[in-house]
């Protein structure tokens, strides 16, 4: 089965790195680890991390991934790259030489992206990635082994924290104002502007700034807010909240750039593999594999496919293959964009037509196409697409008040953008939130165009319209 030796890999890696340098990609030092399928599935279940804290959900992930591979879902590459410095990637022992070479080339694309894209640069410290995951894993294990805490309590708390992990700020590049700054801003807002006509008319009495409200401004970091404001939590619980939030923070750049990142890596593996002048047998296999990776997913969105098509189009429009202008443009875009801005700026109408992008809606038992990318409605399709890439798939929910009704109840608002919340999930998640907060929770949202208030109190879940 295995048709390669470690020396082959070193040889091809050497050749690939020559090309990487020639094309001007800027990478972290690279490390590859060769593992078998079982280990690969294990890495995939634990987000690629060599060390990660235990939780049953990863066991579930393992089973799901394994099922997918066992059923032979096509085009799923056996590839895993970690955003760390040095960059760590896994190669599957049972892959053919061609797949190994392809994967190595693909990995360098990711490597360059991790090192240069702003979302990664601002949100993560690649030199600490592995150590940080290890440290967190050790902390969680310590709590599990602590007889006064135990596995069950930790699991229960993690269940709740995981449910809210991604209800945090997404754009990490934007600094969050400190409490003092928020206070100052509130006072600033309440201070009357100097009025040159003050002597001509009675000025309105200045409004008292509301400084006792918690939080001062709507708060998106739900777990961290609970950590800092629920006085009844034990230290280990606070620490678990920190741990879960830190992990979520690590994954946000990956979510924000899924299409760009996979597209970028596919774009470069394609370019590098062509430049390598592979022997014919390898080259033919490469073409087959490449097409598997970037094949469209009818009715869905394959990020490899869309990303690849858009990057190719950018290169074509800004000077063509191997031109310095195009290269410069590509590098600038990979540094400064994320999926939303990337698609907004570079997904043209022609490209949308080529991809045959459409919107669908459920109608009765069926999903029915509503708009296609034609002259009339391509902009609507595009707008719909932009809303559901990156972290756009996650509803924005903010804490407005931590002392609702004067009884320490938590009042939150869902920033509704046309998409209603899924109710089963909302009910359960609010239940978890109440567990973490220890008091009643209220969530304001909209259901079928009407304002609605969901709540979990002593008497359980309730949803009612509030006009």
């Amino acid at each position, binding site marked *: 089965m295995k048709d390669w030796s470690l020396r082959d890999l070193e040889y091809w890696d050497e050749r690939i790195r020559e090309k990487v340098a020639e094309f001007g990609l800027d990478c972290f030092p690279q490390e590859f680890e060769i593992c078998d399928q079982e280990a690969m599935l294990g890495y995939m279940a634990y987000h690629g991390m060599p060390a990660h804290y*235990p939780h049953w959900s990863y*066991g579930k992930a393992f089973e799901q991934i394994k099922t997918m591979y066992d059923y032979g879902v096509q085009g799923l590459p056996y590839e895993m790259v970690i955003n760390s410095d040095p960059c760590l990637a896994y190669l599957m022992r049972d892959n053919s030489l061609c797949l190994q070479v392809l994967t190595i080339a693909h990995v360098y694309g990711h490597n360059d992206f991790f090192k240069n894209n702003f979302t990664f640069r601002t949100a993560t410290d690649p030199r600490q990635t592995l150590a940080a995951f290890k440290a967190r894993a050790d902390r969680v294990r310590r709590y599990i082994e602590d007889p006064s805490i135990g596995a069950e309590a930790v699991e229960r708390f993690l269940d709740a924290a995981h449910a809210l992990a991604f209800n945090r700020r997404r754009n990490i590049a934007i600094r969050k104002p400190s409490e003092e700054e928020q206070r100052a801003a509130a006072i600033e807002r309440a201070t009357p502007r100097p009025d040159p006509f003050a002597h001509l008319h009675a000025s309105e009495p200045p409004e008292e700034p509301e400084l006792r409200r918690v939080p001062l401004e709507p708060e998106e970091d739900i777990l961290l807010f609970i950590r800092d404001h629920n006085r009844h939590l034990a230290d280990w619980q606070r620490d678990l909240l920190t741990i879960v939030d830190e992990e979520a923070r690590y994954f946000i750049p990956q979510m924000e750039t899924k299409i760009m990142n996979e597209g970028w890596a596919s774009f470069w593996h394609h370019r590098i593999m062509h430049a390598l002048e592979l022997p014919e047998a390898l080259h033919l296999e490469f073409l087959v594999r490449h097409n598997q990776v970037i094949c469209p997913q009818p009715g869905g969105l*394959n990020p490899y496919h869309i990303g690849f098509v858009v990057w190719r189009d950018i290169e074509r429009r800004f000077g063509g293959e191997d031109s310095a202008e195009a290269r410069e443009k590509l590098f600038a875009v990979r540094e400064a964009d994320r999926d939303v801005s990337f698609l907004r700026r570079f997904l043209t109408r022609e490209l949308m037509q080529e991809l*045959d992008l*459409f919107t669908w809606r459920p109608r009765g038992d069926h999903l*029915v196409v509503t708009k*296609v990318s034609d002259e009339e409605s391509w902009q609507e399709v595009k707008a*719909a697409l932009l809303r559901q890439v990156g972290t756009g*798939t996650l509803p924005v929910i903010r804490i407005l008040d931590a002392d609702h009704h004067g009884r320490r109840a938590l009042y939150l608002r869902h920033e509704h953008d046309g998409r209603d919340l899924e109710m*089963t999930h909302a009910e359960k998640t609010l239940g978890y939130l109440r567990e973490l907060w220890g008091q009643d929770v209220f969530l304001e949202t909209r259901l079928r165009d009407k304002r609605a208030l969901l709540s979990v109190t002593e008497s359980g879940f309730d949803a009612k319209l509030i006009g």
Partner: protein
Amino acid sequence: MTVFRPYSESDALRSDRSAGDRQRHREKLRRSLRENIADIIAEESIIGRTRDRIIKVPIRGVREYRFVYGDNEGGVGTGKGDTRPGQIVGQSGRRGQAGPGKAGNAPGEDYYETEISLDELVEIMFEDLELPEMERKFLREVASERIAKRKGYRRQGVRVHLDRKRTARSRIRRKVATGVATTSALRPATPAEGEERFPFHKRDLIYRRLKPDIREESNAVVVCIMDTSGSMDRLKKYLARSFFFLLYQFVRTRYDNVQVVFVAHHTQAREVTEEEFFHKCESGGTLISSGYRKALEIIHGRYHPELWNIYAFHCSDGDNFESDNAEAMRAAAELCELCNLFGYGEIKPMGSHYYESSMLERFRELDADNFQAVLIERREDVWPAFRSLMSREKTPADER
């Protein structure tokens, strides 16, 4: 310089780190299955199927929840180039299922439907149930199961248990010890010319020691009595069959040594096969006593109550001929005397107990600790009814 870390077998062997988490996940899966079993049982599709059939079971408990969008706004997808408005691109999934157009980068959008075999399901269902009052029969060891197990070796024994390989080895060992050994000693061929014969000695012979493995288990017989009269309409029969199906599967899962007898009755009763019992329909009036008499006849003939733990279960709509009630009561009382447990399930779907006569009240007068009656009104009742019969509290009564 790029680092390649080669594959290391030993690392791979000790790094099954997901084992613990997988195990925990499976535990949760099982628990969730058990919690939803009443609903699953209520699904028509599993009753009367063969055991190796794979069924799909929706799982609720092990889903992970977070705030996600519903599908009121639909989604976006790529087409093959000829997509037109109005075209159908998929089926609305059940709630929580990802639509085809959701970008695949949201974490943990999961729906869950697991496939398990009926066998597995049955096993999970009955994990914590047992035929009640089994251990009270004092003759429990009489019919224990015997399997001979190999346990070591010995010098004496019967010829069939001779271990020839060990015997030959011990002869060679003896030969070497006596100093006759040459290289040919290891060759079992006929002795060469002039070489002294070295025969087997009685001390060389080694026998396998066999030890009977006595598993203590009780003898039990379960008598299933079902009313197949005309008043048992389709739904009632279905409910009765569901109940017996559970009982039957349960008995087969739990005890190797249990016999099951099927009795179907209307105005007359007869013993039927499993196949007939679950699949055949009949009609006619109802004489409950006929079923009981048949059961008594079978018990007297084949299953002596001194040697067997006897369980009798009867399902009926209770719509008995008025004239038969007294006789039925007598027969039931007799059954109670013979049986460890006599269970009666009355099937009264959708409030039909308002106009049909019922045996439930009548049977309540039955003065026996080992009698248990349940009412089954809907599909959802089948499992709780079954459970309540099976987990009946053990009372120290009727010790004979």
